[in-house]
């Protein structure tokens, strides 16, 4: 593993056991959420992750964030195995390095907390700023994601979906992470709002030099944001290639199917598709 690699996933497996029937008499079924996945993410890179629903993309993201304990395999952050951290302090440190933005902005914000409280929680837990400094930092973060400082006093239900997602991003940025997993961040947003959030993503990525894993089922979005793209199917990683190469000449048959189904060619002002009439 060279110095350039930030994250290294090796043979990661996450199986779920479902017990059908109760009282100890049921049958157990094992579902492979993530089935032996390995890949690296280089520093400063945005890796796209695509696949159908149920392909394991979200499970992979959550396992990488230690929300699930893996059945097998390792994930290395700068060479350190994140599942074998010793002590509370080390685990807390990792929270500052790796963060996540969830798919549904409505459910990723605590409806009982103001935007300001949501953002400052990170600052409190990691003792990053006190008193006046803290308030200043909250306003800075809000501005960074394109919200006015007045948003700090508002509750989630007072925001539109796009604004909620901005608050969620501000929360993730509060700990000054190096690596962020975006799990379908624009899936529940309207097209025009999606565009705004993607624009925000580009700006932040450049300004803060972020390394990202961008999960999406929307191939067009992934094509736009990623340098390399990984394709998942049935819990397995079936192909990983540079974006251009993957979309121009996919190797695996599933990737071929996916790309044929998804993208629409739209170059410049004239479209090159033909309409079925």
């Amino acid at each position, binding site marked *: 593993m060279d110095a350039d690699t930030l994250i290294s996933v090796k043979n990661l497996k996450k199986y779920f056991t479902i017990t059908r029937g109760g009282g100890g008499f049921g049958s157990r079924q094992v579902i492979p959420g993530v089935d032996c996945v390995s890949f690296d993410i280089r520093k400063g890179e945005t890796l796209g992750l695509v696949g159908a629903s149920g392909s394991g993309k979200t499970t992979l993201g*959550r396992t990488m*964030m230690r*929300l699930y304990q893996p059945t097998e395999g390792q994930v290395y952050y700068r060479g350190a195995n994140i599942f074998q951290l010793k002590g509370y302090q080390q*685990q*807390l440190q990792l*929270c*500052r390095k*790796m*963060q*996540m933005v*969830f*798919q*549904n902005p409505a*459910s*990723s*914000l*605590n*409806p*009982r*907390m103001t935007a300001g409280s949501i953002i400052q*929680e*990170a600052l409190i*837990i*990691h003792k990053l700023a006190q008193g006046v400094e803290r308030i200043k930092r909250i306003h800075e973060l809000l501005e960074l994601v394109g919200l006015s400082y007045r948003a700090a006093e508002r*509750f989630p*239900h007072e925001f539109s979906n796009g604004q909620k997602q901005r608050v*969620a991003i501000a*929360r993730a940025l509060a*700990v000054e992470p190096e690596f962020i997993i975006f799990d379908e961040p624009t899936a529940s947003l309207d097209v025009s709002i999606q565009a705004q959030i993607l624009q925000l993503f580009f700006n932040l990525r450049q300004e803060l030099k972020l390394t990202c894993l961008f999960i999406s089922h929307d191939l067009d979005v992934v094509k736009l944001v990623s340098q390399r793209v990984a394709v998942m199917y049935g819990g397995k990683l079936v192909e990983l290639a540079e974006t251009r190469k993957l979309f121009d000449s996919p190797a695996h048959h599933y990737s071929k199917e996916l790309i044929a189904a998804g993208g629409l060619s739209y170059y410049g002002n004239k479209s090159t598709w033909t309409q079925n009439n």
Partner: protein
Amino acid sequence: MKNEIWMRFKGNKGACISLILIIILLLMALIGPYLNSWRYSDQVLPNANKPPSAEYWFGTDALGRDLFTRVWHGARISLLIGLATGFISAVVGAIYGSISGYAGGKIDGVMMKLVEIFYSIPFLLYVILLSLLMEPGVKAMIVALSAVCWLGTARVVRGQVLKLREEEFVLAARLLGAGRTRIIFRHIIPNVSGPLLVMTALIIPEAIFAEAFLSFLGLGASAPVASLGYLIKDGMQGIRSYPWQLFFPAAFVSLMMLGFHLVSDGLRDALDPKIYK
């Protein structure tokens, strides 16, 4: 959002009237005993068993005591016991249920088994046993009642917590490095308040009734500090000749219970999960 809940509540006429009723009862319980010149323990034996009149608004009891004063004094005790029980059950149940639900696994299993065991003991039997163990009095009554009622709130809260545990905002807090305590108290408990409130509003009349019943059996607080239940017991003795002695305390116990039940119904409707979330 709070405005919407309030407006839905206002739309429910039964609930609103009940709320006003309860407020009136509370006020009267506070100031009622001072409204006329009689004190609750003043005995004027020649005036025993007098029907309601201008001098004795609710009549007198067998020892010549003014029933108006005694009824409101009794109401004070009943309401105190009801509200205190409700409050303690809510707090204890919320904490127990949150810990059990959030911990999950074996801990949850053990904690809930305990609740189930206690739950299977008949309510009144349990309260009677407990109150026999302690010195009879208001404090003992509150402790005994709370010891039973918290089981209900614990279950309700645990159910809510199991749902909330997988919400994205809880996951986000975990990713920020929030410890269990912070998650339970900052994220989970504030969001279980809806069903918890409804449950508590039901516990209050149950506690009032239980207390009245126990006092009726002679197991409650003793004379001359008389709760409504005790007054009912006394009133039973003169039921044929002096019906007012039974009527007033019984009527106000009924009104209290009806009032709280309707308010609880109104709350439950106003907090309808479809819109609450």
